[in-house]
């Protein structure tokens, strides 16, 4: 209310001068004084008021409601905190932390000591916090100070990334476990054989030796799988640049993968000729692994069909279809994980290393392709690999490329061999 009183000095002087003049011109002094007084007072009264700053009916700044509206649908969980109290929590924050956090102390929402230390500071900052909602999750908590007592807290999930690094440690642990199991049984049998040779008859010794042989073979498979996995992984980011005749390659690799005694179960069909940019060895391994899986997990003597067609997107599409028990849907997302087994005992019995599909996945990724696994329990499983086609600039290069890849065989008949086309 107290404004500094600014006197209109100029006006008051004029009034005073006029009053003196009036007095001098013979009018009685009291009149002159009265005139001066009235004049001065009117000057003071009619002094222009300071323009009143009216509160704007439509404020320029954001109201609380518009602020809520602004962050409400943001994808990442956001909290607006005023003096450690949660003022606003947007929809995804409420979904993450629970409806109760609004109005509560921010420590109720985020109780990790590192986050609390962050809240106590009054600057920008961030902290990595574990166990925000579930025990093992990882979040990055960022605090953006608005002024000295309000701040925006942003929560970003880092669980997936930490999963990756955990998966890496798991891998080492799993790999050593997988290597140890055959080793310990080899050592056990060898010890028995060498320590008590007199107690063991011929037949038992043979059985032991067979087991040792089988386990050693498994170990060998495992080591070679591990090596190819690490090789594929190392090259994961450089795409192969040699054109490969897929028809020829698939047919040959399927035959190799099946082996002599299972090859009559495998059928290969192709609709058209396909060429992709690829690494011959790796693509062969891909086909071998898929065929081996299909034969192993298909019902005994059931056929396995390999079908090479063009996908809707113009890619070369290879389907490997078996007729087996199929895979439960909950296992499907994990199938390409290393050492993941839906039925550990059975997989080991059939000599599986648990790495086959992991290798396939990496090979497909390196070829910029896509891998899909569909399965119906009781019906069978279809594995689909799609790889972008390579179209040679000139038609002549076609044969050239084919020759390049078919190093040992010149029989260019795509549907030859033991597998007649079943149409």
């Amino acid at each position, binding site marked *: 209310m107290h404004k500094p009183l600014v006197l209109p000095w100029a006006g008051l002087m004029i009034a005073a001068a006029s009053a003196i003049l009036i007095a001098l011109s013979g009018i009685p002094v009291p009149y002159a004084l009265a005139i001066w007084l009235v004049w001065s007072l009117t000057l003071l009264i009619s002094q222009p008021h300071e323009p009143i700053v009216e509160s704007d009916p439509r404020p320029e700044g954001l109201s609380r409601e518009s602020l809520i509206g602004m962050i409400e649908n943001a994808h990442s969980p956001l909290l607006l905190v005023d003096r450690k109290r949660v003022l606003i929590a947007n929809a995804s924050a409420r979904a993450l932390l629970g409806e109760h956090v609004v*109005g*509560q*102390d921010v*420590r109720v929402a985020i*109780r*990790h*000591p590192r986050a*609390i230390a962050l809240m106590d500071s009054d600057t920008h900052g961030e902290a990595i916090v574990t166990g925000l909602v579930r*025990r093992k999750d990882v979040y990055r908590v960022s605090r953006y100070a608005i002024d000295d007592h309000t701040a925006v807290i942003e929560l970003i999930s880092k669980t997936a990334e930490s999963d990756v690094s955990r998966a890496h440690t798991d891998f080492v642990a799993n790999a050593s476990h997988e290597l140890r199991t055959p080793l310990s049984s080899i050592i056990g049998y060898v010890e028995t054989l060498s320590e008590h040779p007199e107690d063991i008859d011929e037949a038992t010794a043979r059985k032991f030796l067979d087991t040792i042989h089988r386990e050693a073979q498994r170990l060998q498979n495992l080591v070679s799988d591990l090596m190819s996995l690490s090789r594929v992984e190392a090259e994961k980011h450089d795409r192969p640049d040699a054109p490969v005749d897929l028809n020829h390659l698939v047919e040959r690799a399927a035959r190799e993968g099946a082996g002599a005694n299972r090859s009559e179960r495998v059928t290969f069909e192709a609709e058209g000729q396909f060429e992709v940019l690829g690494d011959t060895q790796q693509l062969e391994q891909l086909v071998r692994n898929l065929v081996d899986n299909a034969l192993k997990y298909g019902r005994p003597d059931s056929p396995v069909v390999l079908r090479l067609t063009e996908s809707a997107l113009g890619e070369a599409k290879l389907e490997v279809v078996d007729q087996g028990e199929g895979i439960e849907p909950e296992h499907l997302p994990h199938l390409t994980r290393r050492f993941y087994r839906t039925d550990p005992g059975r997989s080991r019995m059939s000599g599986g290393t648990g790495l086959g599909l992991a290798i396939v996945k990496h090979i497909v990724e390196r070829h910029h392709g896509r891998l899909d696994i569909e399965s119906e329990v009781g019906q069978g499983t279809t594995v689909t690999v799609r790889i972008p086609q390579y179209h040679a600039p000139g038609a002549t290069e076609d044969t050239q490329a084919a020759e390049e890849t078919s190093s040992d065989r010149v029989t260019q008949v795509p549907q030859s061999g033991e597998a007649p086309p079943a149409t």
Partner: protein
Amino acid sequence: MISEHTVKAFDEDITRLRGLITEMGGLAETALEGALDALIRGDEVLAERIVADDRKLDTLEIEVDRLAVKIIALRAPMADDLREVIAALKIAGVVERIGDYAKNIAKRVGQIEGRTRFEPLTLLPAMADLAAEMVHDVLTAYAARDPALAREVIASDKKVDAFYNSIFRNLVSHMVENPATISSAAQLLFVARNIERIGDHATNVAEMVYFAATGSYPLDDDS
């Protein structure tokens, strides 16, 4: 929205009290996770830090005590407000105990010899996971005032007890077979005991959470 009191300062006090409790909970939780981590990896530096950090928990407990007494003295809370304050007072004590057990586990880290080849060590993580899960859940239940989750925590204490019994038997037979490792195995026995106690304390907190939220105690059907 939460119901507000006419006296705004009272609201602020209660909010602060709950904030302090969860802050304590966060500290205890991290201490427990850290202690187990230190134990499994044999990280004595981490173990020392956990022992040192326990002091913060003690300070916070005193702060909670003061604030709770102040609220009772100045505001004379009634009904659910009174329950809230009483529960906070009790929970603070129990959470502080959980921190103490974590500290105790951390203290034993240096006293287990031949860690990498010490087999019984592999028994503990699963049990510890279970107890840590309980502590985590009970704090979440407190934050959300969720009696259902509190009940769940109470129910899972049985699993921790079963774990403890099996680990106990295992360690005892290990000691019989390998007398040389008795001192290490005995340390682990205490660690297992501590974890079991942490489970019990998580149950206590769960009972208080249930009490604060509903006004009655969950039926004590075990013990």
